């Protein structure tokens, strides 16, 4: 049970992120919800590679000891960089929306409906 705790933490982060995306109306809070889902998925990727009593895979000419899996760490680095670019783009569109609509309430920013 204690071994599964990181996976439960990922599930809680993803569910909190989806709750924020569905029920909060401020556009900045929607971006924060998207970041929560992304953090949950990144944590899930790193947790996949864990082995108990192992060291970080950062040595060359290492002594014979166990290391955690390095591939998920590479995947997570890529995902963090993609998340950075995505958040920057969404926030710049939020600034433009504020300039045109004078509000960032999602129930009022809906000139394109039906």
């Amino acid at each position, binding site marked *: 049970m204690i071994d599964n705790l990181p996976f439960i933490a990922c599930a809680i982060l993803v569910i909190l992120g*989806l709750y924020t*995306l*569905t*029920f*909060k*109306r401020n*556009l900045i809070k*929607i971006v924060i919800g998207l970041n929560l889902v992304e953090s949950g998925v990144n944590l899930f990727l790193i947790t996949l590679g864990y082995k108990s009593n192992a060291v970080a895979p950062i040595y060359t000419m290492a002594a014979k000891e166990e290391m955690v899996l390095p591939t998920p760490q590479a995947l997570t680095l890529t995902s963090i960089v993609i998340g950075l670019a995505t958040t920057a783009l969404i926030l710049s569109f939020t600034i433009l929306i504020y300039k045109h609509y004078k509000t960032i309430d*999602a*129930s009022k*920013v*809906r*000139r*394109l*409906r*039906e």
Partner: protein
Amino acid sequence: MIGVLETGTGVWSALYWILSFAVLFIIVYFIYSLGGKTVKASGDKGKPFLSGNEMEKEKIHVKASNMYWGFTEALKSYYTPLKGGHTGNINDYVGWFVLALAVILILTGGL
């Protein structure tokens, strides 16, 4: 031969369709040309006339949003919830997405 598509149960050829359409068109045009000429619309005969009022052509042109009024009015009970579902609100977009995810996970996974 070229131009003949085999669907599973039959054959479709667009070239034969054009050929038969051209033959029928020639027959119809021949019958049409045997008839009398139509009267030319001049003076009061060509102007639009609407319930006793004469109007210009620009005013009686049916606009796009009025075009299918009968169809949309008859299906009001289908269209009102449909337009209510398309709100334009980003929270509802994500809500529909999560709903579809839940239904598909239940169906494929037996969760």
